[in-house]
């Protein structure tokens, strides 16, 4: 009995142990690491990937995955930028970009649900399409020159806290509420656990899955807009490759790739673990190439751990 409890404890809180360990390690390894300034810095750095991970969580919980998020980030930035330059009010431009993202989510859900295609392949295809669109729309040239007001989203502060961090934290709180207290959230967990059983209880699977994919794209679009505002330039390649950081964070945080398992609080910790790793290594003057290696190793370790703890469930 005692053994089982210990296992449960590790299963539940492993990621927090890792996080604390990391912080202690880097605090000793570098004199500049352990400071409020650097803490806010880390949080601001993760805000983009952190926001995207909220959306990704919904999709992975249903048993799916969305690789197109990197493309959504770029495409949304480009579209929003072009609209603003064409004279649209920033609010209109933002809303239009979010709508575009919703359509992307709809397409992802449509192909993976209606034709029973593997969502990994479907979203890999949409990722390609979105990448292409970003370059076509911009002609591969960065777009810039927005109004000053637009900068607030990515560069503004409320008190000492950067706005991106606030957006991120609000989204985590909302996601926590939705996943824990609403019927949508509970059905999402059910669908990931056993889709057929949930279908036979009369829950509209189609609606829930479409909602999850659309939420994922729209939340990713929010990240895209924050990014656009922060760098104040729409790069057609912005956000490329982020899908891997996002998935790594979610999986590290205990979201099972087979669906139905994991908590949003864990995801936040998972994203943080990756960010602290990267930030700490930077502080210790480890080159970016070695950081990639380290991230890959951490990801492998995380998914292996997930499989071992949860048994051989595929």
């Amino acid at each position, binding site marked *: 009995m005692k053994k089982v409890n210990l296992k449960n404890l590790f299963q539940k809180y492993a990621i927090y142990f890792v996080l604390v360990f990391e912080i202690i390690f880097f605090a000793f390894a570098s004199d500049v690491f352990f400071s409020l300034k650097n803490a806010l810095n880390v949080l601001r750095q993760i805000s983009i990937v952190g926001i995207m991970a909220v959306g990704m969580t919904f999709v992975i919980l249903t048993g799916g995955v969305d690789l197109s998020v990197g493309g959504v980030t770029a495409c949304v930035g480009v579209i929003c930028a072009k609209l603003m330059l064409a004279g649209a009010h920033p609010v209109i431009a933002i809303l239009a970009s979010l709508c575009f993202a919703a359509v992307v989510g709809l397409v992802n859900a449509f192909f993976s649900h209606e034709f029973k295609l593997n969502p990994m392949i479907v979203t890999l295809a949409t990722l390609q399409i979105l990448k292409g669109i970003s370059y076509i729309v911009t002609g591969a040239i960065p777009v810039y020159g927005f109004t000053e007001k637009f900068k607030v989203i990515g560069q503004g502060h409320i008190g000492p806290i950067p706005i991106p961090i606030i957006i991120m934290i609000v989204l985590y709180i909302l996601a926590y509420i939705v996943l824990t*207290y609403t*019927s949508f959230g509970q059905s999402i967990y059910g669908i990931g*656990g*056993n889709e057929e*059983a949930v279908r036979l*209880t*009369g*829950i509209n699977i189609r609606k829930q899955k479409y909602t999850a994919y659309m939420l994922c794209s729209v939340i990713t679009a929010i990240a895209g807009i924050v990014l656009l505002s922060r760098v104040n330039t729409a790069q057609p390649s912005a956000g490329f490759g982020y899908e891997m950081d996002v998935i790594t964070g979610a999986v590290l945080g205990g979201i099972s790739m087979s669906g139905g398992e994991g908590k949003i609080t864990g995801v936040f910790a998972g994203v943080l673990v990756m960010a602290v790793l990267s930030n700490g290594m930077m502080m210790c003057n480890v080159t970016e190439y070695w950081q990639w290696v380290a991230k890959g190793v951490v990801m492998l370790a995380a998914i292996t751990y997930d499989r071992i703890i949860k048994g051989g469930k595929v």
Partner: protein
Amino acid sequence: MQERDVILSLRDVSKSYYGVPAIEHITFDIYNGEIFGIVGENGAGKSTLIKTVAGAIPANGGEIRFKGEKLELKNPYEAISKGIGVVYQEFNLFPNLMVYENIFFGVEIKKNGFLDRKQMIEKSREILKELGFDFDVREKVRNLSPAFQQATEIAKCINHQVELIIMDEPSAPLTEKEVDQMFKVVRKLNDDGITIIYISHKLNEIMDLTDRVSVLRDGHYITTFITKETSENELIKNMVGREIADIYPAKELSDQEVILRVEGLNSSKVHDVSFELRKGEVLGFGGLVGAGRTEAMRLLFGADKKDGGRIYLHDEEVSIKSPTDAISHGIGLIPEDRKAHGLILNKSIFLNCLLPSLKRYSNHGFIDFKDSKKEIGEYYEILKIKATGQDQLCLNLSGGNQQKVVLEKWLLKNCDVLILDEPTRGIDVGTKQEIYQLIKDLAKQGKGIIVISSEMPELIGVSHRILVMHEGHITGELQGENITQEAIMTLAS
């Protein structure tokens, strides 16, 4: 009959699952070169017996000797190398590999260290041709019809030079014509000196094909007949044997209004199924496995797409296109396979019970945890679910308790019509009795209950009226005194 060599002998072979005996003290001999039939009702222990012989599951006790040598198999692959081949109901092939790769699995022909595919293809073709089959051995098994898959399985046995082939319900997936072909194959194998154990529900096949036949009942060996000297009726009598134990509550027949009417339900596996269900009635569906009962109920429930048919509830036609529709009209289904379809195993009892009733327990999308926990807790008590609490994962519950959770989730939903597909499969007698009482209570409350069961005593025990299905058709209706196992069997085959 002259003295013959014994090829397989069983002495006191027993196997129980979690303390529930599936077979007990099975003892008999099988002679070299005969076709030996095994018959028995569902749950009689036939499958367990085969799996024990084939090394798929270990026996708890007793001794199995093959060609005089004590058999201690650790896994099914060892069986085939020792000379025992098994053709299971669900074929044991690799669907993603080609026919010849399956036939040569584990005994690949090699030349200079590399696979000699040419020779394997050639030889596979020869074996199949001998059996009277001619299809592309480079086809993936997944793409083959059941008959060809079965042929592949048999060819695999021959290629491994087995001396004994056990066939578990080999005719079940086949069409009538294919069955004739399979019979020829079995006789040919037998002529070549291979001993066959043939298990079937279908007594006419047993009478046709076998030299001797043994009857199992409730996990016990009953007797063995020389086939020529017995009759189908005598076999049935021995299979049924016992009196129906009085674990079934007394029935109170319903004279109330019709609650559900189904007309002309059709699909590829269900043909023109029509029936009525009254308030307070328990309507049983009898028949062999694969007769189309489950399929018919899934159509009614909207779980599968139907090609035609009308459904009336309280004399009003309703459109049911999905389980969501069915449930909103007050129909609930407790599926046959509780692990795959009934439960989310890695989720809590609470969540499993909550999901069908989400609407009732939520307010603007937010779940009322206080109310739902309280009500789920009440039924949890009534059903006497044995668990550490509502938060326990269903994964760790026993079969009986898992089934109770499935029942609970539908009780909470309070359906007018409840369909129970094999409600007591794989659960202990005590829980069975509780479930029978529950079925009776629900009927008494005025609900319409449909029960599918392959266990005939159970079907007879709980049903007011029984419809029997065969190959997708309703072949007859039995009521009152006419309900007997013999009558059901006759209609079912």
